[in-house]
């Protein structure tokens, strides 16, 4: 029973990490209709920037705070100076933009490898969150519980912001009718770039948060971003709540496959995705998609 509970918690922890990435990806897609394949690059960027901060200050908390700033700036700049102008000039379709970010994903991995080498790094767990805690008659690392708490807190905060605040209302209006929002005097390009930056910052935040339990290496973002894609497709592209549930489903599937069916560990989540695609191509929680 206990191993099962530990796997369950590990699954939730992985789910929350993936959720931090998926939420940004799905927000950007829902709002701007851009599939940002480079989302994993911001994950890598945040982790490495956090690593630099942690190494120079010795503080995990500063790394957690400052680490996401670089991906924020990079994401903002990418949307504001590259993607937005390209889309506006009408030269590029959404697919072109997706392919462009595909190039960015590999360019970032290459650049990181150039600067930091291909070695594996890690950020030390902060003292406050070291050790294990007794839980239902077993021991569980505090830090992993911290990840779970952070994921849930951010999920709840986002839902509140989007459902209950003026900014959220503007965002939802932007999804529904871009022109109308512009006509109401809102600088939608700036808003979109900020959201892009925010989504990227969340990915970078996930990078720092994951650093004490997973290794930091140059192509870390390329691996996790595919899992994130599975999550957003299962949850329905552009669906925030869907991505939360889908994160849990995918995280659990992955963790339990690794624990109990190790032969299937590398492809269990894809089988899940394919099953979803056969029965609900628009995603488990998505509205019926538009056609052609």
């Amino acid at each position: 029973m206990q191993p099962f509970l530990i796997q369950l918690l590990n699954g939730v922890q992985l789910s929350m990490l993936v959720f931090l990435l998926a939420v940004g990806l799905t927000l950007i897609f829902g709002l701007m209709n851009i599939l940002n394949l480079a989302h994993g690059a911001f994950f890598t960027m945040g982790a490495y920037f956090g690593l630099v901060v942690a190494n120079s200050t010795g503080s995990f908390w500063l790394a957690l705070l400052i680490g996401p700033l670089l991906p924020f700036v990079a994401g903002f700049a990418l949307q504001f100076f590259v993607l937005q102008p390209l889309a506006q000039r009408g030269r590029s379709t959404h697919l072109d933009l997706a392919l462009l970010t595909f190039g960015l994903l590999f360019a970032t991995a290459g650049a990181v490898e150039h600067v930091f080498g291909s070695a594996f790094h890690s950020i030390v767990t902060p003292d406050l969150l070291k050790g294990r805690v007794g839980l239902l008659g077993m021991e569980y690392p505090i830090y992993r519980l911290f990840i779970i708490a952070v994921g849930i807190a951010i999920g709840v905060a986002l839902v509140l912001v989007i459902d209950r605040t003026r900014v959220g209302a503007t965002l939802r209006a932007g999804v529904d009718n871009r022109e109308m929002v512009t006509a109401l005097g809102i600088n939608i390009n700036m808003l979109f770039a900020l959201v892009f930056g925010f989504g990227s910052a969340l990915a970078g935040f996930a990078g720092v948060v994951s650093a004490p339990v997973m290794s930091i290496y140059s192509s870390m973002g390329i691996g996790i971003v595919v899992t994130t894609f599975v999550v957003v497709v299962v949850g329905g592209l552009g669906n925030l709540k869907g991505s939360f549930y889908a994160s849990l489903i995918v995280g659990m599937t992955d963790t339990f496959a690794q624990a109990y069916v190790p032969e299937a560990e590398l492809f269990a989540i894809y089988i899940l995705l394919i099953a979803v695609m056969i029965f609900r191509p628009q995603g488990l929680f998505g509205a019926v998609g538009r056609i052609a």
Partner: protein
Amino acid sequence: MSADVALSSEQRIGVLKRLPLPASRRAYAALFALFAVSLCALPSFVSGYVMTLAVEAMIAGVFASGINLLTGYTGLVSLGQAMFLGFGGYGIAIGTALLGWPLWISAPVTLVVVAAIAAPIGAICTRTRGVEFLLITLAFSQMFYGAAIKLRWTNGSDGMTGIPRPDLSLLGVSADNPTVFYYYVLAVAVLSLLMLWRIVTSPFGSVLVGIRENERRMMSMGYSVANYKIGSFALAAVICAVAGILQSQYTYFVNPDAMSWQMSGEGVLMVIIGGANVVLGPFVGATVFVVVKQALSMITEEYNLFFGIFFMLVVALFRGGVLGFISTLIGKRQ
């Protein structure tokens, strides 16, 4: 057949307008002939190194041609075509090494099996479109990539070695000779190209272009759009598998890296460089890509960095590709 009748003349002109080099078919044919002649003569006046590059470019060109059928003609951008490249390589590796079949049985069986696997995969993938299609093809290829790493009877991530080249002793030559292998690859590449040309100029090809341009209209005209897409997907898969067979024969081995995500991306990049929806485009794109890759590997070890930057520049600045660029030049002059 029925496609021919159903497309109105106006629409057919519309389709033709989008074909490469309008009104200069003869120039195109002449270019093609010149290209073919120089390729045949190539081994007699270049070094082995250039020939190696030419072989790589031709194999990549076949791979990119398969992607082009799906992406350029049907308008479905896939990031998972490398799985079929891997299927081709693994197919003949399993056939020859594990089952002990001769190559002339293994290769056709591989292609038939690939088509049989690709059809249901295509049926699932083509339920989606746009970026969702891109993601699900990516997921499929990642799944097979993971399976190839895990499978023990194909040696996991080490892959399989000892893949045979064709036995040409009847002609008194050995395919292990680089020049002979070059001609073998050239022959297969030309055959694939002719097959592709036949496909895209057929009524079937016109329907694919119609789907790309206006799927809903094709639907309302009574075409079973879903079946055409699946057909395009399976044909593209077979062409990619041909490239996979050549690739594994060229290197004598196959490993899961053949199915990697990056490989699919490289193929899409070649199609973009060459200009999507031009039959010869992928070969031009593949040549540019192989040459740039070689040049990069000589000046830097950070391949990923420059691959990424190159990719971004091509997508952002070079829509229509090299041939598209030439085509607009000629179009302007006329």
